[in-house]
């Protein structure tokens, strides 16, 4: 093991106490937190057509997304959607750096909410540091206990909401009140709740620094035109304290008064003045901190600001560049592809399963019979009538061909069928097609191939 000299194998528990700071970016991050968490907690309660609007019904293997019902067979859409999400992350990272980390990542958003609760019960940064150093007293216990109460209640509610995306949340709520929740449901609720409590209450910035894979590979998407948060070294150095009346130029000083405020507000505990660091989650707290000091000193704002490496070196910044063009083209192509595929999707699925027990049956009058089980899945929300046919072999017939079959909205019909052909035409293996067509709309039709087996020629 190569460990740093003098450092213990075990981490000494020196906590990071991020200092609260108001400002434009703080306001933005508060808006982002409230919006995103609000969506998370409210969406499962929304109804659509007398069912939950967004429900990933795992027990029934159906996903409801507002008016859309997705089946396991629609998995390619979901995969495509995830690829689009990943690619958008790359695209926005190339353009705007770690905007996602600072404002939209669940880790950041929940940590922010937990810090609000901490501030509410334990007070400001210095009050919190003092409280942690103080010996146990009734006041300390009261403050810590009320913080834990808020944290745990919030975590449990989070776990409950999370499970509510997978089982009907209204029913789940009633089940909880009646103490009759299923074992696995309870387990996943507690699991997610506990993960939230641990990650947002205790792990915080360490998740970003040590565990997040994105933090490690995001630098691959960065270039000199990417928006980053940076300290303007040229303007700030040499740093040093001074009175407000002193003209920094005469004193031979830069604009940085070395107040350490940018360090104190940093949730990951870094010093932005040491340059771009992988720990930086681009939350912009240091910008707010520095701007407030610049205002007080009557210096122009922006000693710490959103900028690009090129602009720091007095070169021009290019928003349109090969990297962003490639990401944008791919992204557009995939989104158009997904929308087209969704729009042209036929809302019926046919699965054909050959009877495994017998290859074929010889009937009197030189007729060969094969048996199949057809599964007709009606993906629309209303019941629909279909008609079934089979093609691919001369004189092939299907009992029940031409008959109407009715499938409920969102239902699956399992239909055993017998297919027959004359013996002399059916020798060997033939490829045949089953066709299911909706009666009310011949455009809604699906073809599935299978095999028809006969005696060896």
């Amino acid at each position, binding site marked *: *093991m*190569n*460990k*740093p000299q*003098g*450092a213990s*194998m*075990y*981490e*000494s528990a*020196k*906590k*990071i106490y991020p200092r609260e700071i108001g400002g434009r970016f703080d306001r933005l991050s508060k808006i982002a937190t409230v919006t995103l968490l609000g969506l998370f907690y409210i969406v499962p309660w929304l109804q659509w057509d007398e069912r939950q609007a967004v429900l990933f019904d*795992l*027990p029934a*293997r159906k996903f409801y997304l507002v008016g859309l019902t997705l089946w*396991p067979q629609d*998995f390619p859409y*979901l*995969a495509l959607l995830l690829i689009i999400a990943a690619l958008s992350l790359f695209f926005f990272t190339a353009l705007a750096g770690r905007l996602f980390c600072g404002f939209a990542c669940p880790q950041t958003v929940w940590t922010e909410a937990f810090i609000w609760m901490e501030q509410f019960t334990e007070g400001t940064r210095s009050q919190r540091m003092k409280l942690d150093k103080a010996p146990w007293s009734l006041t300390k216990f009261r403050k810590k206990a009320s913080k834990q109460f808020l944290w745990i209640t919030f975590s449990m509610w989070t776990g409950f909401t999370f499970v509510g995306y997978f089982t009907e949340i209204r029913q789940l709520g009633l089940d909880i009140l009646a103490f009759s929740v*299923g074992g*696995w*449901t309870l*387990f*996943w609720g507690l699991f997610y709740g506990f993960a939230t409590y641990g990650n947002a209450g205790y792990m915080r910035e*360490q*998740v970003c620094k*040590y*565990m997040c*894979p994105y933090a490690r590979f995001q630098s691959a998407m960065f270039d000199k035109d990417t928006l980053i948060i940076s300290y303007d070294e040229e303007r700030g150095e040499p740093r040093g304290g001074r009175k407000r009346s002193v003209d920094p130029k005469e004193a031979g000083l830069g604009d940085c008064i070395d107040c*350490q405020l940018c*360090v*104190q507000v*940093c949730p990951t*505990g*870094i*010093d932005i003045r*040491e340059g771009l*660091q992988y*720990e930086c989650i681009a939350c912009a707290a240091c910008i707010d901190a520095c701007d407030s000091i610049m205002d007080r000193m009557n210096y122009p704002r922006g000693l710490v600001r959103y900028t690009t490496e090129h602009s720091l070196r007095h070169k021009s910044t290019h928003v349109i560049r090969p990297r962003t063009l490639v990401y944008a083209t791919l992204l557009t192509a995939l989104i158009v592809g997904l929308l087209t595929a969704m729009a042209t999707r036929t809302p019926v699925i046919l699965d054909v399963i050959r009877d495994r027990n017998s290859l074929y049956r010889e009937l009197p009058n030189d007729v060969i019979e094969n048996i199949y089980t057809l599964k007709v899945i009606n993906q629309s929300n209303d019941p629909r009538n279909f008609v079934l046919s089979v093609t691919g072999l001369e004189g092939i017939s299907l009992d029940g061909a031409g008959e109407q079959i009715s499938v409920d909205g969102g239902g699956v019909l399992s239909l055993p069928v017998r297919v027959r052909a004359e013996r002399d035409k059916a020798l060997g293996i033939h490829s045949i097609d089953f066709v299911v067509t909706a009666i009310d709309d011949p455009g809604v039709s699906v073809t599935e191939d299978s095999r028809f087996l006969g005696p060896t020629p």
Partner: protein
Amino acid sequence: MISEEYRGAKQWSRDKQAVFTVIWISFLVAAAGTMLFFAVFDPVDLTGIFDADLDVSRDAGYAAGFFFFWILCAVCSGLTAFLVRTAPKRDAKHREQ
């Protein structure tokens, strides 16, 4: 990298970092793997393969699948992390020569 105020305090040991990274990354991969796997296979159909009398609900099937993937991925990346660990010191010596 870490500001003066926190230096030497909040750094995780390599072991701790490796353990948590392995757990977390295998969790993510297992989540993706479970999704892919169960999009194709229905746990209710699968249980029949192991034991015809086995009566397992879908919920339990999903959970079992997820933990199976998680443990599998954690064992794999854990062993990898453990085995690649010994190299750096010798490398450094070679470079000096």
